[in-house]
C-alpha cells in the first residue's frame, strides 16, 4: 500500500479533485475525438514525426498558449486569495504550490516556448534557409521540452506540486523541509525541458552562422535574427549551469549528497548563486528576442528603416555580456559585504545604458515616419513607456543599499512583472498577431486585437502598479495571507481587479482566434502588412521548402529593396531541393525520457534503468541509421509554386 500512497496528492482539496476530473475528461475527449475523426495517422505523419521548422514552431506556439492559460489561472487564484485580508480561498500549502508553479510555468513553459516558436518559425525564413541546421535535433528539442512540460504539469494530480518557490532555494527545497515528491518534479521536469532548450541553442547558432542566404553578411541580418543569435549564444552559455545545478539538486534529494544541505558541509548559498548564474541570463534570453520582434514591427508600421542598426546590434552584444556579471543582485542581502555589493550594483545599473540606447532607437525610428496604428504596433507603442517604467525601477533595485528594503517585497514582484509583461508578453502577442497571416494564411481581427491590447494594458496597470506601493509599505512577497491591520487590502483588491481584466483580455484573445478562423478573409496575399524582411517574400502558406529559389540579399531589408528599389531577390532557375525525412525517433526517445523522469521522481529504479537503456538504444539506433533525406523534384516545385501563386493572384 505504501507504494501507491506516494502517488496520492499529499494535500488534496476540492479544487484539485475538480481539476483532476476536468483534466481526465478533457484528455478522454481529445483521444475519443481523434479516434472518431480518424486523425491518428494524420497526427503521426504530419505533426508528431515532422522535422519541419514551421510545424515544430506551431507546436511550440500551441504549448505556449496552453501554458499561458495554466499560469494565468494560477495568477488569478493568487490575486483572489490576496484580494481580501485573511481570505480562506487557498490555504498556505496550496498558495505555495500555486505561486511556485505560476513562476515555473510562466518563465520556462510559457515564455520560453513562445520565443522558441519565433526562433523556429522566423529564423530560417529570415535568413533564406530551407530549414534549421539539424532538423531532427530540432524535433528532439521540441519533444524533450514537451515531455518536461507534461511531467511538470503531472505533479498537480500525481504526488503533489513543488512548493518551494520557482527559485527553489535550498535548504527549503531539500528533503528535510520539502518532504513530498513535488520538488523532485521540479528538478527532473525542468532538467528534461532544459536539455531540449540547450539543443535548440546549438541548433540555431549553427543555423544562423552557416545557412544564411548568399549576400547576407552578419551585419545584413534582420534584427530579429540578430536577437535570436545572441539569445541562443546566451542559452548555450547559461543552460549548462542549470543542467549541473539541477543534477546536484536531484542528487541531494534522491541520492543523499550534501551539496546544499544545512549540515555536513553543504552550502545553501551555492544553490542561490548557481541558480542566478543561470537565472539572470535567462531573463535576457527572453527579453532579447522580444526586442528583436519590436525591431521588426516598429519599422514596418513607422514605414521607415530601423534607426541605428549598428548600435542595436552592439547594445545586444553588450547586454549579453553584462547579463553574466550581475547575478548577485538577486541576493544583495546575503551578507557578502559592501565591496561585492557595490560591484554588482554598478554592473547592474550599467545594463540600463545599452537598454536605453534601444529605447531611443525605437523612438527615432518613429521619427519622420508614417505611423500606422495596427494591433502589433499598438502593443509596441504601449511597450515603450511601460517597459521604461519597469526598467527604471530595475535601476532603483540595483542600488544595493536601497535594495535591502525592496528585496523580497511586492516592489520586486511589481518590477519583474513590469519588465516581463510589457517586455516579453506584449512582444509575443504583437509578434503572434504580426506573423499570424504568414503562419496560418489569414489575419486576426484588428478591432478585437486592439481591444485586447488596451484591456491588457489597463489590467496590467491596475494589477501591478499597486504592488510597488504595498511593497514599500512592507508587504513581503509569497505571503498567502495578511491581517486587516496591515492596510494592504485596498491595493490588493485593485490588483485583483486588474488581474481579472487581464483574464478578460486573454479570453478576448482566444475569442479573436476563434472569430478570425471563422470569418477572416483568406485571400490576403503573401505580404499583407507591406513588410520589409525576407520572410514576407515567400508564399502564404509557406511551402515546405520555404523558397523555391534561394534569395540573393544585399541589405538589411532585402524584401523592401526588392519591392521599392528593384533589387532582384530570386535569380536563376528552380533546381531540385534536398529536404530531411520525417522521423518518429525524437518522439519515441522523448517518451522514454518522460518515463525515465516519472520513475526518477518516485524513485522506481527498475523503470529508471529500463528507460535509460531505451534512451541509449535510441541513440545507438540513430548513430547507425542511414538517412540521407530526399529530393523534391523540379516538377513538384513548379506545380506547388503555380498553385500558391494562383492563390495569391486571386487575392490581389
Amino acid at each position: 500500500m505504501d507504494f501507491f500512497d506516494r502517488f496520492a496528492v499529499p494535500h488534496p482539496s476540492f479544487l484539485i479533485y475538480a481539476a483532476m476530473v476536468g483534466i481526465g475528461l478533457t484528455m478522454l475527449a481529445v483521444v475519443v475525438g481523434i479516434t472518431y475523426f480518424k486523425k491518428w495517422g494524420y497526427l503521426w505523419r504530419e505533426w508528431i514525426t515532422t522535422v519541419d521548422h514551421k510545424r515544430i514552431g506551431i507546436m511550440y506556439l500551441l504549448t505556449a498558449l496552453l501554458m499561458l492559460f495554466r499560469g494565468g489561472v494560477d495568477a488569478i487564484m493568487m490575486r483572489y486569495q490576496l484580494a481580501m485580508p485573511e481570505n480562506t480561498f487557498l490555504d498556505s500549502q496550496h498558495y505555495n504550490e500555486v505561486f511556485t508553479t505560476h513562476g515555473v510555468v510562466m518563465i520556462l513553459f510559457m515564455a520560453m516556448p513562445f520565443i522558441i516558436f519565433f526562433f523556429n518559425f522566423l529564423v530560417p525564413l529570415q535568413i533564406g534557409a530551407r530549414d534549421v541546421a539539424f532538423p531532427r535535433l530540432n524535433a528532439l528539442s521540441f519533444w524533450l521540452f514537451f515531455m518536461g512540460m507534461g511531467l511538470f504539469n503531472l505533479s498537480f494530480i500525481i504526488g503533489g506540486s513543488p512548493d518551494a518557490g520557482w527559485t527553489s532555494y535550498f535548504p527549503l527545497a531539500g528533503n528535510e523541509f520539502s518532504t513530498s515528491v513535488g520538488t523532485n518534479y521540479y528538478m527532473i521536469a525542468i532538467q528534461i525541458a532544459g536539455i531540449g532548450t540547450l539543443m535548440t541553442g546549438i541548433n540555431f547558432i549553427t543555423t544562423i552562422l552557416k545557412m544564411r542566404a548568399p549576400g547576407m553578411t552578419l551585419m545584413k541580418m534582420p534584427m530579429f535574427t540578430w536577437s535570436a543569435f545572441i539569445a541562443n549564444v546566451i542559452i548555450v552559455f547559461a543552460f549548462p549551469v542549470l543542467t549541473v545545478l539541477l543534477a546536484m539538486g536531484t542528487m541531494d534529494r534522491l541520492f543523499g549528497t550534501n551539496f546544499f544541505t544545512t549540515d555536513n558541509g553543504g552550502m545553501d548559498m551555492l544553490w542561490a548563486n548557481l541558480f542566478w548564474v543561470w537565472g539572470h541570463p535567462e531573463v535576457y534570453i527572453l527579453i532579447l528576442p522580444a526586442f528583436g520582434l519590436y525591431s521588426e514591427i516598429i519599422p514596418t508600421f513607422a514605414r521607415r528603416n530601423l534607426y541605428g542598426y549598428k548600435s542595436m546590434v552592439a547594445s545586444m552584444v553588450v547586454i549579453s555580456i553584462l547579463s553574466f556579471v550581475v547575478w548577485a543582485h538577486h541576493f544583495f542581502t546575503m551578507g557578502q559585504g559592501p565591496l561585492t555589493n557595490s560591484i554588482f550594483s554598478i554592473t547592474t545599473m550599467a545594463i540600463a545604458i545599452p537598454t536605453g540606447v534601444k529605447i531611443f532607437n525605437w523612438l527615432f525610428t518613429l521619427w519622420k515616419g508614417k505611423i500606422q496604428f495596427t494591433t502589433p504596433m499598438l502593443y509596441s507603442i504601449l511597450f515603450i513607456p511601460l517597459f521604461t517604467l519597469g526598467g527604471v525601477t530595475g535601476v532603483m533595485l540595483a542600488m544595493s543599499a536601497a535594495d535591502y528594503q525592496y528585496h523580497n517585497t511586492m516592489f520586486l514582484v511589481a518590477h519583474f512583472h513590469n519588465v516581463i509583461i510589457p517586455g516579453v508578453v506584449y512582444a509575443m502577442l504583437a509578434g503572434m498577431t504580426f506573423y499570424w497571416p504568414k503562419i496560418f494564411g489569414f489575419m486576426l481581427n484588428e478591432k478585437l486585437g486592439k481591444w485586447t491590447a488596451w484591456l491588457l494594458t489597463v489590467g496590467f496597470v491596475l494589477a501591478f502598479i499597486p504592488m510597488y506601493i504595498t511593497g514599500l509599505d512592507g508587504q513581503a512577497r509569497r505571503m498567502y495571507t495578511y491581517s486587516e491591520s496591515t492596510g494592504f487590502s485596498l491595493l490588493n483588491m485593485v490588483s485583483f481587479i486588474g488581474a481579472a481584466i487581464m483574464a478578460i483580455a486573454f479570453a478576448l484573445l482566444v475569442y479573436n482566434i476563434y472569430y478570425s478562423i471563422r470569418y477572416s478573409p483568406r485571400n490576403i496575399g503573401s505580404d499583407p502588412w507591406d513588410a520589409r524582411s525576407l520572410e514576407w517574400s515567400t508564399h502564404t502558406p509557406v511551402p515546405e521548402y520555404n523558397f523555391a529559389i534561394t534569395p540573393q540579399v544585399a541589405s538589411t531589408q532585402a524584401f523592401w529593396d526588392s519591392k521599392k528599389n528593384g533589387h532582384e531577390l530570386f535569380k536563376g532557375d528552380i533546381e531540385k531541393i534536398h529536404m530531411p525525412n520525417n522521423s518518429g525517433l525524437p518522439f519515441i526517445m522523448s517518451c522514454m525520457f518522460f518515463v525515465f523522469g516519472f520513475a526518477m521522481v518516485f524513485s522506481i529504479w527498475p523503470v529508471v534503468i529500463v528507460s535509460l537503456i531505451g534512451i541509449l538504444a535510441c541513440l545507438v539506433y540513430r548513430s547507425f541509421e542511414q538517412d540521407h533525406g530526399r529530393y523534391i523534384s523540379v516538377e513538384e516545385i513548379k506545380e506547388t509554386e503555380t498553385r500558391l501563386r494562383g492563390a495569391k493572384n486571386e487575392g490581389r
Partner: protein
Amino acid sequence: MKLKMKWILLTMVITITTVLTACEPLLVLDPKGPQAKTQADDIMLSIWLMLGIVIVVLAILVFVLLKYRASKQPKDYEPPHIEGSPIVEAICIGIPILIVIFLSIISVDSNYKVEATPEGYEDQEPLIIYASSSNWKWHFSYPEENIETVNYLYIPEDRAIEFKLYSYGPITSFWIPQLGGQKYAMSDMVTTLHLAADQPGEFMGRNANFSGAGFAENTFEVTAMTPVEFEEWVEEVHETASPLTSEKFEELLEPGHLGRSTYTGTHLEFSPAPEHDHGSTDNNVEEDSDIEDHETHDEEDHSNH
C-alpha cells in the same frame, strides 16, 4: 488612442506620487533610524530621477506619435531612409552613463553606510543581539544581558545595535522596515546587520524570505524604548523569567508558531551560533574551530530528528 494612453500613464504617475507623498506614509519611507533614513533618502532620490526619465521618454513618444501618425501625413509622403547619427547616439549613450555614474556613487556610498555602525553612533559600544530563526519563529539572544526572548524584541533607542543573524532551517530574512533593510539568516554562517532606532516606538518586524508553510505569520514585534526603560526591563526579566534549558530550547525549535516568551540565559551557551569565516583567511587555528563547529552542529541536528 494616444489620448487614452496619455491619460492612463498620467493617472499612473499621479497615483504613484500622491500615494508616495500624501496619505499615510509607507513604512519604508517613514524611517525611525539612521539606516532606514539613508535607504529612504536613496529611494526618494531615485524615484524622482527615474520619474524624470519616464516623463522624457513619454514626452518624446507622444510627440512623435502625434506628429508622424499616418493620418496627419500627406498620402504620398515617403518616410526617408536614415541610418543613424553618431552624435545623436553618443548623446543617447552619454546621458544614461552620467546618470548611472551619479547613482553608482550614491549607491556605493550608501553600501558602506548601511554595512557599518550607524552614523552618529560610532562612539558607543553597539548592543549585540543574536537573532536566529526557526520554523516559524524568531529567537533573540542578548548575550551581554544574558536573556533570551521569542518573537519580540526590546531595544534601547539611540544606541547602535548589531544583529548577528542565523537560522535553524531554511534561509530567512530579518527585516524591520522602519529601522532599515533586511539581511539573510542562514544555517551555516552568521551575517551581521547594523541598525539603530532614533526614537521610541513599536515597529513591525518579519521574515521576508519565503520559508515554507508558516512563512506569512513569521513576524515579530519590535519595541524601542529609552535606555533606562531597557535596563528596567532586563532586570525585570532576570527577576521573573525562568532559565532557558537545552530541552526547553529543543521544544521551541519544533516547527510551528508560538506567542511571545522570555527566558534568562541564552541558547548560545549550549547551541552556539555557526560563527566561522567562510573561505577567507583560513588558518590552521580557525580550521580546527571550524571542524569543532561542524561536529557540534551535527550532534544537534541528529538529536533534532
